C-alpha cells in the first residue's frame, strides 16, 4: 500500500457521511420508529399514549382472517403477474427488436400505458369491464360477444375480479419490462448468434441456447422487480373494486392503509408493514439464492 492509498483509506469514511446521514434520517430512523410502534398499541391520533404490547400485534395479525385474505390475494396476484408479465415482456421485446423505424413506433405504443397515470387507467378499465345492464355493456364483453362468448361481470364476480385486475396490470406494466429486455438484448453476442445460424440452429434453438443464457441477469432483475411491484399492489383494486367483491381483491397495502387511516391503529399498521417488508425481503433474497446473478 502506498502512502497515498493509506491516506485515502483513512479519509474514505468521511466521504460516506452525507449519504449515511440521509439514510439515517429518511430510512433507518423511520424504520426504527415503525419497529417500536409495531410492538405497542399506538393510536394514530395520540401516539404519545402508546404502551408496550410485546408481539401482540403480530400474533393478532397472523390470526386475523382479513389479513390472511389480504396476504393470500396479494400472493395470488404476484403468482399470476410475475410469470405472465415476464414472458409477455420477453415475447414483445423479441418481436419489436428490429432496427426499422416502424418497429420503434410499436415500442412506443407498448410503453405508453406505463407513463399514463394509474388512476386514469383505473377509470378507463372500469368502463371497459362494465357488466351488462339495461342493454349496455363494456367493451370487453362486447368484444367477447363477437366470438359468441358470454359477457361476465368482471369486477363483481368474486372468482374473476382478481384475474381481471391482473390482466389490466399486465397490460399496463408490460411495456416497462419490455424495455429492460430490449436493453438486455443489445448485449447478446452477435457472433455467437451467427455461429449458431451457420451451424444450422433454428430460431427456437438460438433463443434457448444463445439468447436466454446471455439474458440471465436481465431476467433475474425483471423477475425480482416485478415481484416487488406485484406485492405493492394497491391503486387498481382500491379504485376499481375497493377491495371487493367479498374482499377478494383486498391487497396488503390497502390493509395497511385501512389499519392506519380508518381504524387509526398505528401500532397494528406498523406491525403489518414490518411483516410486509420482511416477506418481500425474504422473497427477493430467495430469488437471488435460487438463480443468483452471474458475476461476469
Amino acid at each position, binding site marked *: 500500500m502506498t502512502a497515498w492509498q493509506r491516506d485515502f483509506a483513512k479519509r474514505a469514511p468521511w466521504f460516506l457521511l452525507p449519504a449515511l446521514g440521509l439514510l439515517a434520517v429518511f430510512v433507518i430512523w423511520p424504520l426504527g420508529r415503525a419497529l417500536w410502534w409495531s410492538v405497542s398499541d399506538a393510536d394514530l391520533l395520540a401516539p*404519545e399514549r402508546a*404502551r408496550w404490547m410485546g408481539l401482540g400485534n403480530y400474533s393478532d395479525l397472523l390470526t386475523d382472517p382479513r389479513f390472511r385474505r389480504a396476504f393470500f390475494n396479494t400472493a395470488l396476484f404476484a403468482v399470476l403477474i410475475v410469470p405472465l408479465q415476464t414472458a409477455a415482456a420477453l415475447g414483445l421485446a423479441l418481436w419489436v427488436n428490429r432496427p426499422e423505424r416502424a418497429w420503434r413506433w410499436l415500442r412506443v405504443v407498448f410503453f405508453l400505458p406505463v407513463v399514463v397515470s394509474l388512476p386514469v387507467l383505473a377509470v378507463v378499465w372500469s368502463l371497459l369491464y362494465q*357488466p351488462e345492464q339495461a342493454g349496455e355493456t363494456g367493451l370487453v364483453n362486447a368484444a367477447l360477444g363477437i366470438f359468441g362468448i358470454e359477457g361476465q361481470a368482471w369486477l*363483481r364476480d368474486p372468482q374473476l375480479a382478481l384475474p381481471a385486475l391482473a390482466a389490466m396490470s399486465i397490460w399496463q406494466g408490460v411495456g416497462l419490462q419490455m424495455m429492460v429486455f430490449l436493453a438486455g438484448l443489445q448485449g447478446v453476442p452477435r457472433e455467437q448468434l451467427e455461429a449458431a445460424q451457420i451451424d444450422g440452429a433454428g430460431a427456437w434453438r438460438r433463443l434457448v441456447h444463445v439468447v436466454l443464457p446471455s439474458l440471465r441477469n436481465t431476467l433475474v432483475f425483471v423477475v425480482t422487480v416485478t415481484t416487488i411491484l406485484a406485492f405493492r399492489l394497491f391503486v387498481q383494486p382500491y379504485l376499481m373494486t375497493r377491495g371487493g367483491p367479498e374482499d377478494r381483491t383486498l391487497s396488503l397495502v390497502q390493509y395497511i392503509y385501512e389499519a392506519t387511516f380508518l*381504524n*387509526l391503529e398505528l401500532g397494528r399498521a406498523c406491525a403489518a408493514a414490518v411483516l410486509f417488508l420482511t416477506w418481500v425481503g425474504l422473497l427477493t433474497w430467495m430469488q437471488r439464492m435460487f438463480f443468483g446473478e452471474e458475476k461476469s
Partner: protein
Amino acid sequence: MVVSDGRAAETIRVWSHQGQEAESRALRKIAAVFNEVNRGRGWSVELTFFPDFQYTEKLAVAAAAGDLPDAFDLDGPLVARFVEAGLLADVSEVYPREELADFLPTIIEQGTIGGRLYALGSFDSALLLYYDREMLARADVSAPAEGKGWSWAEFVDACEKLKAAGMEPVGLHMNESADEWFTYAFSPVVWSGGGELIDVEARRVRGVLASEENVRSVRAWQGLFARGFAATDPVEPDPFGQGKTAMDWSGHWMARSHLKAKGERLGAMPLPMLAEPSAPCGSWCWAISARTEKRAVAEAWLRWVTGVKTGVVPTVRANGAVPSRRSAFAHFPEYSEIPYRIFREQLETSARARPRTAFYATLTQRFAAALRDISRGADVEARLRKAEDEVQRVIDRKTRSVAEVAR
C-alpha cells in the same frame, strides 16, 4: 407585532376541507371579515385549505405529530373518535343556552358526545326521494300527498309500474366511490325497519348489525337490485338529471341542479319507510383543538363561523346545504317550497345522526363493503354477519388493550 392598546396580536391557525370552489371562496370571505372586525383586538385567523379527499388523513397525521391547528372542521361522524383521543375542546359553555336552542337538534346531536358539546356546524344535510312528475304520471303512479312519504310496499309498487312502462325506476348511486355514501344513504333503511348498526353504549356490533330486523330490511333493499329497479353499476353520476331514471335517492346537494333540469316537473318526498319514517343528517362541523393556547380567539372564530349572519348565511348561499340554525331559514325564501321544505321538516322530526362511536370509520367502511356485495346478490345474513365480526374484532382489540392498561 403589537396592536394599538399594547396587547400582543394573536393569530390562530384554522384548517378547512376544500369542497366546492364557491364554498371555499365564501369561507375565505368569512375569515377576511372576521379579521377586519377583530383588528382592534389584534385577533386574526390564518385559513388553510386541504383537498377534501385527503383532509381526514391530513388531520390524523397532524394529530399524530401533535400539530393540530387551533380550530378546524371535520366530518360529523368522526367527532367521537377525536374526542376519545382527547383532541377536541369541550365547547358546551361557549354558547348561551338560548343561542344553542336556535340550532337544529340534529346538529347539536352530531356534536354531542357523552353529554358534552364538542363540535357545531354551520350547515346540515338532508336526503330524500326526488321524482319526475311527468314520468310517474306516464306510468300511472300517483305520488303521495305533499310532505308525506311512501311505505316500502308503495315504493316497490311504483318501481314495478315504472319498470313495466319501460323506464328505469330509481337511481341509488352505487357508483359512488366514497364509502360514506352507503352508510349515509342506507342507514335510514335499517333504522326505518327498527334496527341499529351498532350499540354505541355497549360497544357491540355483534348481534346488532345482523339482527333479524336488519336482515329483513336489507333484504327488502336488495330486492330493488334483484328485480332490476336500480342499477348495481351505474356509469352516469346523475342519471335522474339526464332523464334516465324516474326517481333519485339523493341529497340536498342535487336540489339546485335538479330544479334547473326539471323545473315544475320536479317532485320530492321523504325516503320510503319500512315501519318508521327515517332520514340521515350530519355534515362538516367546526371544532377547537384541546391544546390551543389561544382559546379566546378560537372560540370567537367558532361563534363567528356558526353565527347566523356572519357564517351560516354566506356558507349556505355558497354550498346550497341546509342552514344549521332556525333563524337562518328566514334568509332563504326557497325553504317555503319543495324540495327545500322537506329538508327542514326532516331535520326537525325524523332525521338522526349516524352512530356517534369512536369506531365509526371502521363501521362505515365494513358496512359499505357489505352493502356493495349485497346489492350484487350476496347472501344478506351471512354478509352482514361477516361485517359484524370484522368490526367487532377491531372494537374488542381496543377494549382489550384499554383493559390491560387499567390493570
